[in-house]
């Protein structure tokens, strides 16, 4: 187990409560399964997903929803893997909606049919998010590891709107597709998306493994943000309801992101086998996380070791401990600190105050000279997952 840091001298005594009041778990992400027909090389699922335990049953998921809802959870995301492979999805949607959740289906669109779109609507599904890999068929299918993916996604996006759902389209952008951002935005507007997430790859799971082949250059990023802002201005002038959300990769920041709005602050993820996490990337950390098979959601959120591990500020070593920005960014992302420095308590190396910031500078430098093609990326599939788990 890692040092908790609580035996360090308290240099900020009296300025902040060491254990601030715990917020409500407003956001519940239900990763129903790790099974997925696609093989995206930037998937945030753990590298060893193929070695994880048995999936929760319908009844176990419903218990999770009921308990979380009683505790104040209002947004529920059905995610994965590909949630559509769960045969009980319509039943889970119906139960969740009955409990009062706002229900979001986060899907690749592969496996979706008009019949399912209509059945889910009857079950009470509030919203469907479809993820695209690129704006043109060839790059999309290459990244998805599927020959028919693009045409299917277009058809399903049109069907989602035709059935009266609000729709979010999600594009994970990286060095191989970010220069087409204008075409991506045009496509989303044509498909009548209500929200468009232009999310530059965040480097966890498979994306971290493939980082050199995915991280865009600074120049690519600056251009993409400028193009996005031009479209935003145009949409606003037209009174157009479509909203563009641009997520910059933190590798080009000097201060870390306020990851998950703080550890155990509003987000709660439950993985396919029932492990509860403060964010979907936390599984890889050397922290004992509770399982919904063994504990109530009440215990998990308020009392478990894992959810309390990085709450508050008294676990922080320097430079975070005496930093006057710690209430703003909470020292950044714990998973990234662990991945890049070996100690999850350290400052996120994105921060220029971190002694490990050189790792980020080196990654930026590598992005200037990277030559990896899409075909050379490690694709997220069972075979690769088992190979990685063994090595």
């Amino acid at each position, binding site marked *: 187990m890692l040092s908790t840091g609580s035996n360090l001298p308290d240099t900020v005594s009296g300025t902040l409560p060491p254990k601030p009041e715990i917020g*409500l778990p*407003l956001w519940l992400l239900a990763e129903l399964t790790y099974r997925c027909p696609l093989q995206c090389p930037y998937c945030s699922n753990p590298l060893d997903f193929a070695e994880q335990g048995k999936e929760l049953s319908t009844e176990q998921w419903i218990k999770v929803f009921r308990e979380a809802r*009683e*505790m*104040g959870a*209002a*947004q529920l*995301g059905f995610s994965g893997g590909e949630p559509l492979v769960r045969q009980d999805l319509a039943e889970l949607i119906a139960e969740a909606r009955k409990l*009062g959740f*706002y229900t*979001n289906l986060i899907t690749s669109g592969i496996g979706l049919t008009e019949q399912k779109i209509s059945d889910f609507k009857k079950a009470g599904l*509030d*919203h469907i*998010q479809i993820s695209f890999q690129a704006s043109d068929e060839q790059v999309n299918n290459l990244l998805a590891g599927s020959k028919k993916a693009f045409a299917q996604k277009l058809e399903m996006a049109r069907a989602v709107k035709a059935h*009266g*759902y*609000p*729709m*979010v389209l999600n594009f994970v952008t990286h060095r191989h597709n970010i220069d087409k951002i204008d075409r991506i935005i045009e496509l989303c507007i044509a498909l009548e998306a*209500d*929200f468009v997430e232009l999310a530059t790859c965040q480097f966890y799971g498979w994306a971290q493994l493939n980082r050199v082949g995915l991280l865009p250059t600074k120049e690519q990023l600056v251009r993409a943000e400028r193009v996005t802002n031009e479209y935003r201005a145009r949409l606003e002038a037209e009174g157009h*309801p479509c*909203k563009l959300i641009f997520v910059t990769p933190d590798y080009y920041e000097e201060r870390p992101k306020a990851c998950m709005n703080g550890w155990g602050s509003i987000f709660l993820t439950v993985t396919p086998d029932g492990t509860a996490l403060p964010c979907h990337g936390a599984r890889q950390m050397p922290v004992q996380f509770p399982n919904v098979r063994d504990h109530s959601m009440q215990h998990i959120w308020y009392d478990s070791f894992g959810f309390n591990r990085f709450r508050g500020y008294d676990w922080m070593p320097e430079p975070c401990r005496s930093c006057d920005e710690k209430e703003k960014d909470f020292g950044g992302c714990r998973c990234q600190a662990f991945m890049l420095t070996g100690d999850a308590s350290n400052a996120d190396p994105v921060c220029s105050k971190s002694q490990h910031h050189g790792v980020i500078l080196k990654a930026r430098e590598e992005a200037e000279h990277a030559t990896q093609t899409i075909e050379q990326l490690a694709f997220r599939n069972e075979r690769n997952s088992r190979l990685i788990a063994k090595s």
Partner: protein
Amino acid sequence: MSFDRSKTPTWRTGYRYQYEPAQKGHVLLYPEGMIKLNESAALIGGLIDGERDVAAIIAELDAKFPGVPELGEDIEQFMEVARAQHWIELA
């Protein structure tokens, strides 16, 4: 430019107004997001049903809270903001 009180507000598709017991207040839920409404916004929001026009909403709140100065203007302002944010449609 004067506000047309004969228009009827409806929540935009996918936007849901509901009471959250854990937060002891009303919220507006939408795809992957939530806005906590303050007390007056919650009162106005509770009357948006696709039937009442703005004038009816003003009349109803005026009857409930008689003598509140500039009540009508406050409600108009809420409608303007909610429309600009694309939370509601006014038709």
